[in-house]
């Protein structure tokens, strides 16, 4: 009985398509609004310096095998010796990142703006969908699912006889919410995607602790097994040249 459920074409024209289009447009709007609201913050000189030191140390680690052992040892000492190495952080001197974050009102403000720009449109759209389209069977997914998915796909319809593959309009909204991420990353560039992950990071982990990454980089540099590759490259060059000559 559930198989021959006939849906009115008006539902397609006035529920399914408008809902999807609105979701896309709201995503685009949200992107531009959050871009406008993003305040250009002046980075802290000390943090930038530490970040650059980390990048330099990482470069050294990646290219360690291209310099002679003596040079490598000298550079490693420069970064990680226990007295004045660039990566060495004295024990009690590590600043509390969390406290620093709270003392900077700009940071908290920025975070709130970002969160708001995400939450407000979602709440509004959800309210809009609920108000206008509650109780419609709006779509049918083209593959069968088990009863377990009923709560997920037929949110807003309290009928246990309808086949599970029919989707209510409210659940179509949720499907759009998650499935359009890929489309956004194409039409808006990857800035959109990275923004999302950054937002996640800020919400959960409260940024990162620069001193911790300094220490990690120092440990990484300390355990590098240095193995100069230049002699091997000479052999390789010899082989290539011989091949050319032949």
């Amino acid at each position, binding site marked *: 009985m559930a198989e021959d459920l006939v849906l009115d*074409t008006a539902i397609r024209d006035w529920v399914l398509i408008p809902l999807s289009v609105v979701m896309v447009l709201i995503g685009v709007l949200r992107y531009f609004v959050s871009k406008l609201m993003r305040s250009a913050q002046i980075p802290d000189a000390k943090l930038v310096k530490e970040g650059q030191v980390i990048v330099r140390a990482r470069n050294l680690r990646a290219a360690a095998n291209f310099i002679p052992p003596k040079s490598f040892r000298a550079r490693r000492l420069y970064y990680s010796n226990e007295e004045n190495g660039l990566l060495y952080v004295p024990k009690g001197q590590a600043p509390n990142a969390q406290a620093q974050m709270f003392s900077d009102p700009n940071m908290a403000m920025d975070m709130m703006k970002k969160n708001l720009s995400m939450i407000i449109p979602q709440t509004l759209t959800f309210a809009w969908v609920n108000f206008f389209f509650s109780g419609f069977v709006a779509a049918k997914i083209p593959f069968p699912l088990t009863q377990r998915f009923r709560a997920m796909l037929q949110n807003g319809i309290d009928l246990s006889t309808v086949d599970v593959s029919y989707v209510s309009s409210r659940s179509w909204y949720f499907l759009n919410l998650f499935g359009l991420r890929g489309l956004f990353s194409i039409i808006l560039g990857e800035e959109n995607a990275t923004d999302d992950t950054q937002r996640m990071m800020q919400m959960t982990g409260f940024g990162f602790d620069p001193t911790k990454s300094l220490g990690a980089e120092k440990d990484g540099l300390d355990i590098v097994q240095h193995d100069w590759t230049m002699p091997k490259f000479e052999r390789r060059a010899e082989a290539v040249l011989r091949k050319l000559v032949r």
Partner: protein
Amino acid sequence: MAGHDESETSGRKESEEIDVPIFSAENMQSNMKVIYYSRTFMSIIGGVIAGILGFTGLTGFVIYFLVMAITSIGLIAKTGFSIHSYFIGWSQIILDGFLGGLMSFVLFWTFAYDIVHIF
């Protein structure tokens, strides 16, 4: 590994002698981004195609895997069949982001299928 090759004079073993990974991380990342984009794009296109043609059930998912395989082949052809100058290994170009586009695929498949077929 290269210990007994040291007296070799011919260039046959040259790839074994130098096993240092020599690549630039930024270029690598940009290549991965290209893979990710093409997969997302192809999964959306594939979803629309599967929906319009009216595939249901398992056939649709087969189409997804087919589309992903075609994408992989296309990417490999784009590298001129010399993967190692762009990526670390075969698995990277074939498997990375394989399931990432599934959500987009299902959404667009459902959308196109509903518009064309069920009403």
